[in-house]
């Protein structure tokens, strides 16, 4: 963390950048938030630890409109999002000085809580530089520990790899965290009967309160004005009026980001209701891989996106009913 601060201050001092986009400590030990830093003194609450899951690439849309360059810290997975935004002309490369930061997997406070650790006062072991495999948590009820792996976000277990796809320089080394099959859960659901599938999604989506957090955090969902807020489709919805609307919202949201979603997992991370929203996006990714060849959004800025290209031999939509 200190390396990041030191380097950021240097780049500010020599005029390479005029501001820094990073994370600052939140009001709890586990909720740092994205923030700008411009002066030396700002860096007092700069943090970079296992709870800095927030993908800063989307903030670069606004930063690209500001005067001067912005230093942005991007984790390996965040660079895919940045690339995708670059492809869509939403961010400007020249406006960004990208420091690719290492990552040893990001933490999910809900998982820690689910382990029965309550009344958290402080957490150690979450720093990237810590070699520790365990987190030590000081709670109102005394010191508790848990394995770092057990507290990791789902997305880090299926990490795309710790290689930065775009950067100006790299700081800190990463640790591989991939230990699960990215599509296992999607495949499990595909194997259910229609009734079971429907029940599963009815239960999950029934929790949706239409707070729009998933949309607002999503780097692909970066429209100036969302179709669900405009009158273009008579689709602006103020309240969660019936059981269909959240299905429509989530299907359309996933469809709009299909072929553009880098699977950064932010939607699921921020959902206050704990809905596994990534299961929608990942379903599309799995289908695209199977039908049209493997495609990773944000990997190659020049690649043709799956929904804006085609081949003459593409599968017919009836494949859905014939596929086992």
């Amino acid at each position: 963390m200190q390396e990041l601060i030191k380097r950021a201050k240097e780049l500010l001092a020599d005029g390479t950048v005029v501001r820094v986009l990073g994370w600052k400590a939140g009001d709890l030990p586990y909720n740092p938030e994205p923030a700008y830093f411009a002066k030396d003194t700002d860096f007092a609450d700069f943090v970079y630890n296992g709870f800095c899951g927030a993908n800063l690439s989307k903030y670069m849309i606004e930063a690209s409109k500001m005067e001067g360059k912005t230093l942005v810290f991007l984790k390996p997975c965040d660079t895919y999002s940045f690339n995708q935004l670059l492809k869509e002309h939403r961010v400007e490369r020249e406006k960004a000085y990208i420091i690719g930061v290492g990552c040893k997997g990001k933490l999910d406070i809900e998982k820690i809580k689910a382990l029965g650790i309550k009344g958290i006062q402080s957490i150690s072991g979450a720093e990237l530089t810590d070699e520790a495999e365990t987190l030590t948590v000081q709670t109102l009820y005394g010191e508790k520990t848990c394995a770092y792996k057990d507290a990791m976000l789902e997305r880090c277990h299926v990490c795309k790899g710790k290689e930065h796809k775009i950067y100006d320089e790299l700081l800190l080394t990463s640790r591989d965290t991939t230990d699960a099959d990215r599509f296992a859960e999607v495949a499990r659901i595909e194997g259910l009967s229609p009734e079971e599938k429907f029940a599963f999604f009815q239960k999950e989506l029934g929790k949706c309160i239409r707070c729009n957090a998933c949309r607002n955090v999503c780097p692909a969902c970066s429209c100036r004005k969302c179709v669900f807020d405009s009158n273009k489709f008579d689709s602006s919805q103020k309240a969660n009026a019936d059981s269909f609307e959240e299905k429509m919202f989530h299907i359309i949201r996933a469809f709009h980001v299909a072929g553009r979603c880098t699977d950064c997992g932010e939607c699921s991370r921020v959902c206050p209701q704990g809905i596994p929203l990534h299961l929608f996006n990942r379903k599309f990714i799995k289908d695209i891989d199977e039908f049209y060849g493997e495609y990773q959004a944000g990997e190659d800025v020049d690649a043709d996106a799956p929904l804006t290209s085609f081949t003459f031999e593409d599968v017919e939509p009836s494949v859905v009913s014939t596929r086992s």
Partner: protein
Amino acid sequence: MQRIGVFVCHCGSNIAATVDVEKVVEIIRQEPGVVHAEDYQYMCSEVGQAKIADAIHEKGLTGIVVCSCSPRMHETTFRKAAERAGLNPYMVEIANIREHCSWIHKDVEEATKKAVILARAAIAKVNLNAPLKPGESRVTKRALIIGGGIAGIQTALDIADAGYEVDIVEKTPSIGGRMSQLDKTFPTLDCSACILTPKMVEASAHEKITIYTYSEVEKVTGFVGDFTVDIRKKARSVDMDKCTGCGVCQEKCPSKKAPSEFNRGLSNRSAIYTPFAQAIPNVPVIDREHCLKFQKGKCGVCAKVCQAGAIDYEQKDEIVTEKYGAIVVATGFDVIKLDNYDEYAYSQSKDVITSLELERIMNAAGPTKGHLERLSDGKAPREMVFIQCVGSRCADDRGKSYCSKICCMYTAKHAMLIRDKYPDVNVTVFYIDVRTPGKNFDEFYRRAVEDFGVNYIKGQVGKVAPQPNGRLLVQASDLLDNRQIKMEADMVVLAAAIEPNPDVRKIATMLTASIDTNNFLTEAHAKLRPVESPTAGVFLSGVCQGPKDIPETVAQAGAAAVKAIGLLAKDKLLTNPCTAHSDELLCNGCSTCANVCPYGAITYEVRQVNDHGIREDRRLAVVNEALCQGCGACTVACPSGAMDLKGFSNRQILAEVDAICQ
């Protein structure tokens, strides 16, 4: 809210027998927004149309729904009727209650119910209709032809004869193209030069035709009717106006080791050269790569001997910018490289040649002055073998997947000419299939077999191996006789596949014309619009669209000319008003829409917008209404819903959906 009038047609008994039209009128009259509803025997009749006009005037209608036959039948009729009565024609919608209702249902109650729903959907749509006006764009009455072969020349002549200015841009120093390299042409065996040269002369003498040889298209902007094109005139190093074409410079030029492109590298030419005797223009160019003056700095013989003082070593490339209404692509073809066909020993033996090389050998102006001889030792061949389908109909990446179409016929021609001129030479043709569709084509092939004794064997040659005795061992199998053949030949001629001129890819990109996996330009419709590119104002002539022989090329050249003339004859183009348009406040500038547009109608510009008081520069999609054909691919690709289609807007279609599902 619109003031809508609904007109229900009986269509005699076609509709009225199954749909209770009075009842439809009665129900529809109650719909919100409907201020007038009536039925009539034949709405499309003059009386029927007059009823619409009257109602427009009397009731102040702003929208019309006609419940009648398919809009494909009478939409235009009713739109025109409304227009005559002062209503915007695009405020008319049709509910198809004949083809989609009365004709397919038998039960009156059911059909009536459906007719009402279809009418409601049309009413819901027309409620959201907005008056549309076709855009206008002017037409520059000048055509550009890219490529000066027979296709380009024919298209140019046809357009020029219709009275329009035409420019031909040809990459090489002379027009004439592939056809000028041919010796004779099938199926009548006329000498190629004898029929081509007059056309070349006619084109160059035509007052409406300007020819830019040794030139290339550099940049294309604009759209149908209004293209702006930059043409690079490469430095010829010879003043076109001063040169008299006497040819002394070529004679005296000391650098004579440059391979002749015209003779397919089988002979050499001087550094200053015209590609062939009948070249048009008859003005040489200096090939700077082989010129001693340019390479070593000294020589200057040509300048010394030129009495006209036409040699200009200082000449530079020149860019000409010109406007055009139509562009015809006629870039033609080349034969594929045979580097990957080791088994035919093409690069090992001088006596294995391509058919195009044989054309040059057979030609009196060719490297052997028209004598059939082996290029290795100059001896007359006794045994000649022709191999068909070399690189055509190939599933692997060495060749092409398609049939090159012309090889069967030119091989029959070669075989026949050789047997005619040199009766003592045995000619064997190894074929897979003999494909001779075309007028007098099969008769021609049969003559080669029956009258000229050409030996046709079904079976592809597997290997050609040069022998120590200087001959070529040809190994094949006769599939019909079930025997393996090993024969010695003196010359082997390969019918190499043809492929589009490699430059076409660059040109297609400039024109936003689409191209298939084989680099052939794609036609707007494979059956119904074969000479038009999907990009409006761009037409296709000759082999750039697909393999063709000369008669087909000339026919297509004429067809392309007619299409171009049809465009140039108009002063202004009315554009389809049902085009896409982007809401600047919603547009993300993400380029997704442009990626799916088949017409290249969407571009981006950075413009200041005022978004509820926030002024900022944004990258925005701009639809060129002259290019947009209104398919709507972009509207669905657009994630923010900024892109919408006039006449088929999101809200209009949703209103129809709602009305149907009500």
